């Protein structure tokens, strides 16, 4: 008889090939196909890179990725250090800030910042005009720095999570050693602590870089008025009539190469040094006493919180109840119309909310299920070549979401698979895109469960599957719920993977928000964003109840 594990292993290989390898291989193949005839050609690459404008878009994306990750490091690392290593007050607030910045979809933050920093009418500039008596703009969101800034405000939580969990493992003794040798707190942090967590910072930077390059909503909403073309908006142009999937595929290939180069260089940069901070001798961890400086650090955290969460949400809230947001807070400017329009007069709005909820739930469930099985098989070394499985499960981590969506379109939209316009193609794309998150959380959870408990069950006659269901799963339940919720939240706001795959009846809130944003109607957009956020908050609340208050901040 065949071990059920072998059967599951085969099934998982098939599933992962379908979800991950299929779209990517199809994308590669299509990039060498002639439009219409399907014969071999290099012409797509010539078209994709034959114009200065297209190259410029690629350059813009790369610079934007670097700028956003640099800013995100600036926001996140001091916060992570303060929370993990020091006696800074108000750590709970920082937790709230990070969570808030993570939960607010980036395109919604972008709209908030248009209301704040539009050069003529933005709240900040209006106040500045009033103070300074000039009519010049203090800050202009419609600019390259503005774009990078807004993206960083919503991606720094990734770096925070990475760096904080690494810092949590560094024991005070290393810093003590530096102190004994005469280094102050600043020097010890700069020369000892931060270098020790450099791998985590680098990992975070790469993740933010990839997210930035793949972002579609923010560049469309801010980049077009700012006249900055990036890779994603350019890919969108290749989908204009005639739909040139071939050229889009060719255009996306270098992105994949850059990603691989990044991962490669990360390995090189980390290869020749040691970063071991955990040893057999249990280290002591004491918070560093900062004296008056702790208030400065607290101020920094508060500032980031104001910029990323409080300020944009406040102006969005005002706009969502306004007839015209530019007219400010006054009684005759107040209306519920934006909400009633969406809830009662917009046929699609409610459907899109429902779609969003169940697609995200289905994708999260699938992702966690697949990830748990893969993690279990790999972890318990049940089959040879388990590494192939974990490689496939982690691969989407380095594929920009929009590239993955184009792969899905190329591979599964048309017959024979014919998934275009169905809910299935969106659910599968979301599952594939966020599989690495679920996989990382499942692996971490399983590592913490010693096999001896399972062995006991096996000895008592339980089969492998029953053991997993009755022993292992309950033990890792909390982590799984946490992983499920994270996938659910990121899927519910996903735009770039959805934009090429939606049909008229499968639009999600993110896509509908994007459609509404074309006409620039910020009041309705804000109201829709408010509904989206309310739903997310409720779910985060449930998550905290089920999976513990910090479920999102554990290392993914």
């Amino acid at each position, binding site marked *: 008889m065949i071990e059920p594990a072998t059967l599951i292993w085969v099934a998982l290989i098939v599933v992962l090939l379908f979800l991950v390898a299929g779209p990517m291989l199809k994308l590669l193949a299509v990039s060498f196909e002639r439009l219409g005839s399907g014969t071999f050609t290099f012409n797509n690459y010539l078209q994709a890179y034959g114009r200065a404008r297209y190259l410029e878009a690629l350059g813009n994306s790369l610079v934007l990725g670097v700028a956003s990750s640099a800013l995100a490091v600036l926001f996140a690392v001091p916060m992570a250090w303060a929370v993990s290593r020091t006696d800074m007050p108000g750590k709970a607030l920082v937790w709230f800030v990070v969570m808030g910045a993570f939960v607010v979809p980036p395109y919604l933050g972008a709209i908030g910042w248009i209301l704040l920093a539009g050069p003529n009418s933005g709240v900040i500039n209006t106040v500045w005009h009033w103070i300074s008596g000039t009519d010049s703009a203090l800050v202009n969101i419609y600019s390259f720095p503005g774009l990078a800034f807004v993206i960083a405000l919503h991606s720094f939580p990734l770096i925070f999570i990475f760096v904080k969990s690494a810092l949590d493992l560094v024991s005070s003794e290393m810093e003590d050693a530096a102190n004994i040798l005469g280094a102050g707190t600043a020097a010890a942090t700069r020369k000892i602590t931060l270098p020790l967590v450099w791998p985590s910072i680098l990992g975070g930077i790469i993740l933010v870089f990839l997210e930035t390059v793949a972002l579609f909503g923010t560049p469309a909403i801010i980049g077009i008025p700012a006249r900055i073309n990036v890779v994603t908006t350019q890919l969108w142009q290749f989908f204009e009539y005639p739909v040139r999937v071939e050229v889009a595929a060719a255009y996306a290939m270098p992105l994949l190469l850059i990603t691989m180069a990044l991962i490669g260089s990360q390995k090189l940069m980390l290869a020749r040094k040691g970063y071991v901070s955990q040893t057999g001798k249990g280290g002591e961890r004491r918070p560093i006493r900062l004296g008056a400086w702790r208030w400065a650090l607290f101020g920094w955290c508060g500032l980031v919180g104001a910029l990323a969460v409080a300020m944009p949400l406040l102006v969005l809230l005002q706009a969502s109840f306004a007839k015209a947001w530019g007219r400010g807070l006054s009684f005759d400017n107040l209306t519920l119309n934006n909400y009633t329009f969406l809830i009662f*007069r917009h046929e699609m709005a409610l459907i899109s909310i429902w779609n969003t909820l169940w697609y995200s739930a289905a994708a999260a469930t699938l992702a966690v299920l697949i990830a748990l099985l893969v993690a279990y098989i790999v972890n318990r070394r049940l089959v040879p070549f388990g590494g192939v499985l974990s490689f496939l499960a982690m691969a989407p981590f380095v594929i920009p979401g929009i590239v993955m969506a184009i792969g899905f379109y190329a591979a599964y939209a048309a017959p024979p698979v014919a998934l275009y316009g169905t809910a299935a193609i969106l659910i599968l794309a979301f599952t594939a895109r966020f599989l690495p998150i679920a996989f990382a959380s499942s692996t971490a959870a399983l590592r913490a469960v010693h096999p001896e408990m399972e062995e006991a069950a096996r000895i008592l006659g339980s089969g492998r599957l029953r053991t997993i269901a009755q022993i292992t799963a309950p033990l890792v339940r909390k982590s799984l719920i946490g992983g499920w919720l994270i996938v659910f939240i990121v899927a519910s706001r996903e735009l770039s993977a959805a934009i090429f795959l939606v049909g008229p009846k499968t639009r999600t809130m993110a896509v509908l928000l994007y459609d509404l944003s*074309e*006409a620039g109607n910020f009041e309705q957009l804000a109201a829709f964003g408010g509904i989206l956020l309310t739903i997310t908050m409720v779910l985060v609340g449930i998550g905290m109840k089920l999976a513990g208050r910090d479920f999102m901040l554990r290392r993914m």
Partner: protein
Amino acid sequence: MTKITKRQLFTGAAGFAIGGTAMRQAAAQALPPHEAELYAAAKREGELTWYSGQLSAESSEAVGAAFTRQYPGVKVNVVRSTSQVAFQRLSQDVRAGVAQCDVFSSTDISHSTFLKREGMYMQYRPKNIDGVLEAVRNLDPDDYFHISYLGLYLMAYNTAKVPAADAPKSWKDAIDGKWKNQVAIGHPGYSGAIGTLCVLLRKLYGWDYFKTLERSRPQIGRSSQDPVTMLNAGERTVGLGVPIGTTLYSMSRGNPIELIYPTDGTLLVPSPSGIPKNAPHPNAAKLFMEFAAAPGFSKAAGEFFNLPLRSDVPSPAGSRPIDQIKLVQPTTEEIETGVPEIKELWRDTFGV
């Protein structure tokens, strides 16, 4: 294809009698036989999907709801976007070999002539079309598509920031250096109407018009309606190529905006709808085309200050009578060849 003249727009009386009859019948809840027959078939289909880049999101939803009120049991899935995006979605459907669209509406007439030429449109002449303004009646003599939206695109300014005397009077005025950082406009890669506007302005003033415009750093949105939001907020003070409906609607809600009828001509964009040959709900689609030519459609769109297609539905309040407006429009041929060129030129000039 015939070009619409102003005279034609106002000699729609011939259709009035028939239109009036149809209206009375609708009021009596008894559908004319052709509609009753379609309705019975459409009810079995239960719904239709409408890809549209014509009316604003809010007015499209209102039109969809009005249709379902008139024909209970037939739901309208409104997929509202800019016209080029609507066409992009249709192209993606075609490429994927999936039929999802029942009625396709855009402000770029070249979409419809293309779909007709490629044999992708269904031939259908709504009976109710005899009741619309004469000029609106025969856009395509072969009946593959019909006008469902008469777009007037003009300029607007923020009255709180610009005194009436200083406001630009013409398209030509708007590129004056004194409007640097003040102008807002949509994008021809998204909006069909802005594509048509660019074709017109290039014809009048050459592409140099846009090179000069570029120097005053206009704010580029996507939809032609985007500048209206920018004006409402005071982010920009002059909007180019704004649709009359969205602008009048915004004015009616108390925003400090005023329309400018350009002395060098208000752009008329007669915008067609058609039924894709492979429409999954063909009867509902035909019924919708009947509805588009009937008073119910013009009334629902009129709530949002859009021009009626029929003389038995009043023009929106606040607009200048159309016979007092100097109208201009490029020919269909000019739009067909011009818009693809314009999109490239635009992206070279403006970078996005």
